[in-house]
């Protein structure tokens, strides 16, 4: 019940945020929400499946490129490009999962990295299709039910709605019997096999599901920027997502959201004041790992409980 109250309060603040802040912060909040969906999808693999991936930007980038190319090359409308991009990217995740899940641990990490580098290289070099380093321009935002999303506030609320539904569906997923199997496979894969679970299949389904939500983040990403560049498929993008999950707290629902906020605020806000913002980002991660190795959300909870315990023992 307490958790539901917190979620309600948090959502209310987010809904009313555009009414009390300027366009710059509304846009920054939109980027945080998009990155939160991306980080939450990585969290399905890392936090709940114990599968560290360095290739998740593939799904974000491919969905964004699919949507852009279908729109620019074939002239399709958003109502057609969005489901086609999602379906195509999810199918690609299914294929990549077949390859990457042949290994576990470092092998899995390297396979996801290798596959994403193939896509990144292709996006850079296939100039005829992707316009290479120039990226694809001239894209538009959709207008669901006639609502113009070119307005920063309207786009923010649209993103917030998609983000809320995404996080809710991911939360349902990990709280389900299947989610219990996934967490069991993370902790004791051999025992789970001995209990009758097909550990490989559990991981593969999760890989595909995470790929789907990575694709959703990709659509929001391309709608926001109205531009797509090969850097969206890069290792840096995957690593930032992974760091957001670790910094926020892997295996928690709020962790990736907090981690996404940390990364995006440092990247897009602090960077306008500090030239070497990458250094600051690194420093912040070092501090988090030293003082809250479990991540900001579980770490803050631990400190709060400790303080409360001290306070109650005094009184």
């Amino acid at each position: 019940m307490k958790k539901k109250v917190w979620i309600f309060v948090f959502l209310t603040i987010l809904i009313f945020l555009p009414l009390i802040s300027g366009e710059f912060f509304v846009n920054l909040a939109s980027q945080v929400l998009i990155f939160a969906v991306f980080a939450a999808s990585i969290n399905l693999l890392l936090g709940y499946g114990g599968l560290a991936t360095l290739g998740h930007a593939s799904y974000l980038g491919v969905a964004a490129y699919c949507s852009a190319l279908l729109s620019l090359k074939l002239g399709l409308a958003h109502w057609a490009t969005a489901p086609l991009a999602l379906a195509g990217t999810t199918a690609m995740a299914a294929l990549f999962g077949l390859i990457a899940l042949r290994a576990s641990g470092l092998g899995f990490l390297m396979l996801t990295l290798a596959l994403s580098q193939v896509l990144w290289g292709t996006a850079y070099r296939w100039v005829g299709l992707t316009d290479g380093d120039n990226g694809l321009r001239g894209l538009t935002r959709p207008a669901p039910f006639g609502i113009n999303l070119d307005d920063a506030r309207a786009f923010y609320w649209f993103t917030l709605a998609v983000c809320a539904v995404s996080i809710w569906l991911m939360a349902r997923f990990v709280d389900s019997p299947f989610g219990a199997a996934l967490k069991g496979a993370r902790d004791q894969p051999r025992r789970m096999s001995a209990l009758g679970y097909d550990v490989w299949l559990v991981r593969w389904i999760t890989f595909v599901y995470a790929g789907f939500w990575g694709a959703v983040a990709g659509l929001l990403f391309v709608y926001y920027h109205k531009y797509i560049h090969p850097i969206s498929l890069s290792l840096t993008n995957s690593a930032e997502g992974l760091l957001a999950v670790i910094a926020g707290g892997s295996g928690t629902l709020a962790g990736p959201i907090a981690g996404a906020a940390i990364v995006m605020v440092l990247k897009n806000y602090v960077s306008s004041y500090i030239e070497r913002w990458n250094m600051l980002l690194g420093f912040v991660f070092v501090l988090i790992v030293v003082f809250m190795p479990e991540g900001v959300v579980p770490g803050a909870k631990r400190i709060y409980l400790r303080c409360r315990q001290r306070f109650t023992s005094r009184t």
Partner: protein
Amino acid sequence: MQAALHVQDLRKAFGGLPAANGVSLSVAPGERRLIIGPNGAGKTTLFNLITGDLVPDSGSIRLFGEEVSRLATHRRVHKGLARTFQIITLFPKDSLEHNIVLSLLGLSKARWNAFASMRDSAALYGDAQRILAVVGLEHLAKRPVAELAYGEKRRVEIAMALAQKPRVLLLDEPLAGLSREERGSVRQLIGAIPREVTVVMIEHDMDTALDMAERITVLHYGCVIVEGNRAEVVADPKTREVYLGH
């Protein structure tokens, strides 16, 4: 009568070192079979081959007449094979009842449900309570496994295997590391396993194990060297030579 478990000429080598060197054994339905042998005899390797944790180099494994040697571990479980582990393999952060629920879910189609809440699985939690009552741990159902004593964890291992409603149950040293009192309670628990379950057990506590078993197989360097009832095995000079030490 068709054997519950039939192993024929099973072979497995690790880098040229044979761990199972043509093992053959046949266990009748409902039988209590004890596997003994000195350290390195290949007892746990044999269990791992039967469960599918290891792939045999050659040989066959039949469960109630059905060839299972090429099936994945989880598929063999769905054919009625369950096991416990020599080194306790539980989910220490989770509650006892959650451990049992995972065991119950493993054979249920509900394990694929990705959108129902675990909190809606009241029936499963009810069943878990009943199973925990069988092993005398229902009062600890909500406690994390990490907080349990070693002997209680052993009982949870057995409870998880029983929750799978197995036809053939493999117990890998269920009494290892237990105090005398704990051994008594686990022994009682194993003794109460219904007769329709075939039990194959590896155990080093000879006094207890020999009392519980109807037939005994002695392994040495991956080979079956003696097989028979208690009197036959104890009297056999090969057993005395390799295992009993006199």
